[in-house]
């Protein structure tokens, strides 16, 4: 539902009640939360029934089952959520340039005002590169954190 609120408006409305920085952080946090929650729920939901039964059979308490079985097995989906959220936020930060917060998208608005295409290409390319870079870093972290998934891929 939050996605139906244009980020542009969210930044603008929040910035009238807070400092611009706080407004941007509130807005970006809400969007991130939305994506993360959805993926964490999907991840925990997708834990195979057999693993849960095995955990119950081993006599694990609910907490133990969550920490030792459900969260590790849900980790790939959760981390995918983190990646999606990060890349999305990089795009959204661009919009926060309308409330004078700077950022790479400033080049785009500046370039537009001056009809200076090079500046716009620079802004676009830099934003995309930043998103791809962060995506790759997070993929690396995912690789480090889920050694069991690695074996499956290698096979």
């Amino acid at each position: 539902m939050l996605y139906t609120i244009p980020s542009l408006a969210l930044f603008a409305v929040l910035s009238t009640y807070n400092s611009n920085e706080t407004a941007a952080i509130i807005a970006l946090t809400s969007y991130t939360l939305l994506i993360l929650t959805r993926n964490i729920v999907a991840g925990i939901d997708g834990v195979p029934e057999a693993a849960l039964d095995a955990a119950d059979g081993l006599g694990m308490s609910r907490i133990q089952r969550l920490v030792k079985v459900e969260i590790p097995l849900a980790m790939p989906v959760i981390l995918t959520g983190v990646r999606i959220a990060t890349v999305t936020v990089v795009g959204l930060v661009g919009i926060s340039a309308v409330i004078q917060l700077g950022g790479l998208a400033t080049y785009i608005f500046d370039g537009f005002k001056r009809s200076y295409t090079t500046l716009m290409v620079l802004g676009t390319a830099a934003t995309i590169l930043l998103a791809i870079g962060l995506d790759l870093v997070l993929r690396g972290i995912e690789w480090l954190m889920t050694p069991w998934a690695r074996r499956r891929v290698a096979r």
Partner: protein
Amino acid sequence: MSAVAVLAQSSDPTNLWQWMADSSERTVTGDIPGQAWVTLWHAVLAFVIAAAIAIPLAAVLAHFRKAELVSSWVVNIGRVIPTVTVVGALAIVSLRNGYGFEPWPIVIALVLLALPPLFSNTYTAVRDASPEAVDAARAMGRTELQILRRVELPLATPLILAASRVAATQVVATEALAALFGGSGLGRYITFGIANRDIYEVQAGAVLVAGLAMSVDLVFWFVTRFVVPKPLRPAPAHRRAMTRSKPVEIISSPTPTLGGTP
């Protein structure tokens, strides 16, 4: 004196509803229905173009299993492209070539926004259509195209529609960005509001865009109810939490038991 008071009152709205009630008097932005219409027009145009490209292409490729890797990459690529910058860049290109501020810059940017999720979801849905049903259709002598059209696509409708719903909602909400680069539409209230430091105008813009996006969401909910084939409609309360509380069935026979416990 009282006339002045009344005038002051009417020119200083104290909330966004008041602002909306007599918006025509205090903005150069144009009337609300007109701008809503423009927004909807851009969004519908973009969504239809994206759907017309993505859904048939993905369906055919998925039937022949031709784009396994592409279908997963395409989503990531789509996410990385920031819509703001695309609109801006296209606006300049469009102006240089004499096409004006709109509708093409925003429409193309929105098509790029909607294409990846539509493509990858259609691909996944068609690919994962029940292989038994596909084999049955093939055994009955259906041609490949018939299988795609009569078996795989109907089975894929729930997921395709769910993806379309999300994509369409997002397209409407994102159309507001057009106003940053000289376009019209409901986003104008937001950008003009920021420029004039008129909080009620910004709020009105936000509420109007969100309202339009939610109505589109509602339309898709309605369409989904009628278009999804009856057997594929989800049973209510299918959450795992519910099924898990049921006693675990120990017997699992390889052949389906036709009624009664074995």
